[in-house]
């Protein structure tokens, strides 16, 4: 037993408990502090303190810190790729619409929220393609000129839009009582989950033109979207299957007892509950999809990482490797971290709502 020593003030006591409770703990804590200090001090110096923020060319980067001038000079390219400058308002407009729709739908008090959600999902994607690609009054901007963050978001969102319904259908198919459908679903899911995504993107780029009838050209970007969509659909299917399995049998049985047919049961009873359960897993898959969009680099589609690499090839900005990769990496990190935090907060809210 320790002798009675004067009690430490609150926060100091917590510090002691958490960091210095035992002798070993103290050593470990000191070691950690040392590591943190050794790593973060040079990092902060390079990132912020000695960094160059102002200027227009390479020569303005005089100190040894990061040359953020490079990022500022090429910021538009990182965001839009080679999208023609006079048409960039279309990308901005689409972005604003999407953000507005997202914000509006996240407000729980929105009247007729379900209808608006369905309407958004049905209207916004085709509208987006019209705005980005053109035609019917807007100047056509070919997909080869799209690039940067805008392209990454396009890939992730549109591949996701195809993958989610397809994944749900596959998950339902995997649990179907019709043996053929079940077999076909299992084969499809296991096939696309078992191959590396790089090979799928190669496959889509090389094979899609070959298997289409002559003269039917599949746009290069569309091929990448389709390839990604198929793979992610397989992973989504497994995520949704988890939700379907977690749903108590009683729900389906009760619905059937009420005389509802298969599709009614699925649409009105099973899916709403199952999707709510599997939402965290589905969000994880979407985060993975977002990260996997970098693979289109292999087929020379210039997403955010591709634009970063292309910018490095500019002879006017030699040696900016770290800045370019750190900037692009930071964008990915914040986007993915944000998504996962949103998913976690939703999960918590659901747990409270269900009284668990």
């Amino acid at each position: 037993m320790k002798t009675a020593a004067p009690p430490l003030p609150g926060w100091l006591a917590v510090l002691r408990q958490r960091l210095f409770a035992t002798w070993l703990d103290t050593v470990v804590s000191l070691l950690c502090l040392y590591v943190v200090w050794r790593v973060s001090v040079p990092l902060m110096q390079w990132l912020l303190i000695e960094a160059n923020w102002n200027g227009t060319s390479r020569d303005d980067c005089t100190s040894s810190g990061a040359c953020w001038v490079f990022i500022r000079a090429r910021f538009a390219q990182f965001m839009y790729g080679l999208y023609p400058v006079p048409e960039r308002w279309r990308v901005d407009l689409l972005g604003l619409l999407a953000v507005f729709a997202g914000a509006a739908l996240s407000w729980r008090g929105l009247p007729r929220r379900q209808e608006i959600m369905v309407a958004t999902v049905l209207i916004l994607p085709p509208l987006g393609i019209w705005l980005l690609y053109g035609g019917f009054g807007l100047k056509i901007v070919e997909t080869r000129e799209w690039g940067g963050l805008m392209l990454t978001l396009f890939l992730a969102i549109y591949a996701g839009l195809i993958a989610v319904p397809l994944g749900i259908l596959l998950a339902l198919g995997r649990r179907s009582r019709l043996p053929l459908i079940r077999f076909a679903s299992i084969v499809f899911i296991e096939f696309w989950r078992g191959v590396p995504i790089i090979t799928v993107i190669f496959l889509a780029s090389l094979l899609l033109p070959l298997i289409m009838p002559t003269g039917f050209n599949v746009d290069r970007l569309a091929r990448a979207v389709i390839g990604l969509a198929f793979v992610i659909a397989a992973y989504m299917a497994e995520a949704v299957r988890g939700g379907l399995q977690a749903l108590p049998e009683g729900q389906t049985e009760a619905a059937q007892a009420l005389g509802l047919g298969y599709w009614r049961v699925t649409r009105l009873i099973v899916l709403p509950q199952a999707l709510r359960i599997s939402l965290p897993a589905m969000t994880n898959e979407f985060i993975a999809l977002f990260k996997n969009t970098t693979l289109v680099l292999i087929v020379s589609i210039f997403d955010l990482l591709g634009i970063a690499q292309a910018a490095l090839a500019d002879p006017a900005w030699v040696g900016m490797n770290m800045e370019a990769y750190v900037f692009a990496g930071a964008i990915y990190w914040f986007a993915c971290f944000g998504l996962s935090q949103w998913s976690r907060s939703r999960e918590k809210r659901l747990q409270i709502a269900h009284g668990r």
Partner: protein
Amino acid sequence: MIVLHARAELDAIKARGHIECGVHLGLPGFSFANDKGEWTGLDVDYCKSLAAAVLGDSTKVKFTPTSVQQRWAVLQSGQVDLLSRNTTITFSRNATLGVNFQGINFYEGQTFVVRTKAKVAAVKDLADATICVAAGSTEEKMAADWFRERNLKVTIINFQKNDDAISAYDQGRCDAYTAGVGALAGQRIKFKDPAEHQILTEIISNDPQGPVTRWGDERWQLVVRWVLNAQIAAEALGVTSKNVDEMKAKSTNAEVRRLLGVDGKFGAMMGLSDDWAFNLIKQVGNYGESYERTVGMGSPLKLQRGANALWTKGGLLFTPPFQ
């Protein structure tokens, strides 16, 4: 017996309104896009000439950058009408990939770039070195064969893209990077410090490069071939973008008159308008002008004509007569 249906490429192009040209991902001097997306280079000029000849306007062409790996698939699938990206003509490519080469627009020679500090005088001094190269290029096989024949050991590291190979060499992963003399002169600006590097003068192989088309459409291949010949013929006949109007009006040389469409309906024979050659010479220039502007003395690359001069001037370029 396999019957190949002509795909009427020319009609498709006219309907589409522009030519789809497959080019390099970024090779200064040959096909390179600046950060505004404007393409320049010898191979780019060729495609622009094609556009001027077929559609009357050298700006009616769209460029698709392709890596060494993707170029064949992009051509075979029909996504582009031709490849104009410093591609070397080889037997196996001709025989197994279903592609044809329509002439030579640049006589390349393969050599190596090394660090000046390494004091390499000849290629054989690179024994035991590590060499970076783009996978799937003729340079890869040629370098391997050359060193093997002389019983010298080298380590060859191949990369998916030329730019990856160059930056790996620059970072010090390899002792040397191999490509054609012309290509190296262009890639030089991508090094962190170009002064530290030296391009060897010894050439280890002959790489004739030219435009590439798919099998199947003879009519289109005809156009591709004769547009290249027209560029060379124009230089041989002394027709430049500056004097082409005057030449068309006043020349008495029979071949010039046929070339510029004054006599004979040569354009119509190919399915083009009769001032196909006139347009391309006026808008882009003859071979010599294009060369000087993109890779020659008027460009940062400063390559001599060498083998790329006319046969009358000691080079290898000549063209069948326009008769």
